[in-house]
């Protein structure tokens, strides 16, 4: 059974469509990437899933039904803008937030200690939050998100503001939580991180779905738009190429979206060039993301 089903949702603010006709499903136990540039509509989608706001049209189901008070106890949310009570201790923050998720005090304390140890903050448990560095506060907040062992975790930009070590730690935590069977929504504009840990992705731009599916399938669908060629002879002018970086015996070609790589190969052969290597390159999610955004800009113009 899918953990989240989003069906054709619309949400507008002051006549601006923040989300327009978006549909997707998140399967149980997967890490689902919600990707897109700033202002794309990712946070709006998260707020709709969490029932903070209601869609103008469409339907959302979370953990098998409409979002209810009970659902809140099964969801862990790490917002993009971090916040804990600054003038009370880390432990008090964790115990209070765990209590609001339905945990008893004894269980919450035990789990809090284990989590703080996991992120290297055990000695900071009795310190006030305002005495911690920014990175430590974020790790403390991740503990608050995990403490009640929710079935669904929603991380909104979990890597922002973290140094490389802590970023790696957070990635490990996400992988461990996935192993424990939790469903994870990872909203981020850090494509490299998303590519590394997500199973499936949804790319949003201007409130609309632009890409959706397995990370591998998404990359494969764009694989044909970048080619590496090794050749002998004089490199010809080719049609259907957006950018050509030609050196002595090699060339890196970025194709236009509607160009078939086979057509490029035919042009090269017909021009008399000897092709030694013809490599259809796999684009990273980051490169795909940039392409999609630029293509949308171009279409708009």
């Amino acid at each position, binding site marked *: 059974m899918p953990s989240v089903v989003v069906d054709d949702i619309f949400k507008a603010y002051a006549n601006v469509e923040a989300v327009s006709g978006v549909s997707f499903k998140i399967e149980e136990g997967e890490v689902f990437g919600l990707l897109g540039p700033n202002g794309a509509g990712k946070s709006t989608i998260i707020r709709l899933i969490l029932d*903070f706001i209601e869609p103008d049209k469409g339907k959302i189901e979370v953990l098998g039904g409409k979002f209810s008070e009970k659902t809140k*106890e099964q*969801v862990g949310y790490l*917002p993009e*803008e971090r*916040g*804990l*009570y600054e003038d009370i201790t880390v432990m008090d923050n964790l115990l209070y937030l765990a*209590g*609001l998720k339905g945990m008893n005090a004894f269980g919450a304390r035990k789990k809090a200690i284990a989590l703080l140890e996991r992120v290297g903050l055990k000695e900071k448990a009795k310190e006030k939050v305002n005495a911690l560095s920014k990175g430590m506060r974020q790790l403390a907040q991740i503990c608050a998100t995990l403490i009640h062992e929710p079935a669904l975790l929603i991380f909104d930009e979990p890597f922002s503001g973290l140094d490389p070590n802590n970023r790696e730690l957070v990635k490990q935590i996400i992988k461990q939580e996935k192993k424990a069977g939790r469903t994870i929504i990872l909203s981020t504009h850090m494509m490299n991180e998303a590519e590394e840990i997500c199973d499936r992705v949804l790319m949003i731009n201007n409130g609309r779905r632009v890409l959706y599916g397995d990370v591998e399938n998404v990359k494969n669908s764009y694989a044909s738009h970048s080619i590496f060629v090794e050749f002998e002879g004089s490199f010809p002018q080719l049609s259907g190429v957006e950018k050509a970086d030609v050196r002595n015996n090699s060339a890196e070609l970025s194709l236009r979206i509607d160009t078939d790589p086979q057509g490029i190969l035919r042009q090269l052969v017909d021009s008399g060039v000897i092709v030694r290597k013809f490599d259809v390159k796999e684009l990273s999610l980051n490169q795909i993301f940039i392409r999609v955004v630029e293509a949308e800009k171009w279409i708009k113009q």
Partner: protein
Amino acid sequence: MDKAVKVALQEFRMNLSRREYKFFAFVLPAVLLVIVFLMAFGGRQFSLAEFSLMKKSYYFFAFPSTIAMVFSLAIFLSANFMLQGIAREKENKILEILVSSVSFRQLLTGKILGLAMLGLIQFFVWVMVGTIAIAVIAPEIFLRLFSSFFATWVIGLYFLLFVLGYLLYAALLAAIGVLTETRGEAQQIGSLLTGFALVPALSTMFITGDSTSLYAKAITLFPLTSPITAMIRIFLRTITIEEIVASLVLLLITTILVVLATARIFRAETLMYGKKFSIRELVNFIIKG
């Protein structure tokens, strides 16, 4: 345990340790008691005759003014914690985390209950301290007051006025906290409300002097000033039963309406995402939900 109760306990715990609360709820009453005991042990006590003479003095208004100030501050301190709490939670961005765990209704109810507990502690501390002070410094007056049903009735009325006054200010300040963007803006608008809360205490000499004046009647009925004005006039025994009833009914209706309106605006768009509504939109929102 209901989540609203958990929120209430947290609000109570966090604000109980605040310096201004501890000073006003515990330190100041303790200091007053020490002064009163010192005076009593020094042989300075007040008789009924002396009190009757004092009532005719021009400076007598200081008595009800002090009582008014004490209860005004007790109401306003707790209600102001509401404003500061919401503004702080908005600033610290912790609101999204809270709302992912509890409903808006539970959050608002919990905050009102938690701060009400703080307010009630102040109320009972001051009533106890006041009672002990009268018993020590003016035993004749104490015996007269507390031998009749009057004293219990008065304390009961004071309690009702205090609770309604607190609820009204707490709901209003919660609304201000929701609708303003920054803590500074919230404090500025909240200070305007302080003005209303202090009007009875600051204009006691006008109420004491001529308690049948239009001004005295008006501020007895106006909800923002009625709790404290009614307390002063009950102390002076210059208020009629009809005025008490009218003041309580108006206060109750206003408080219920303000609490309901605040509950309607206590939601994501205003609380977390700073959406600004025009006055018309806000009114529409409050009426239609």
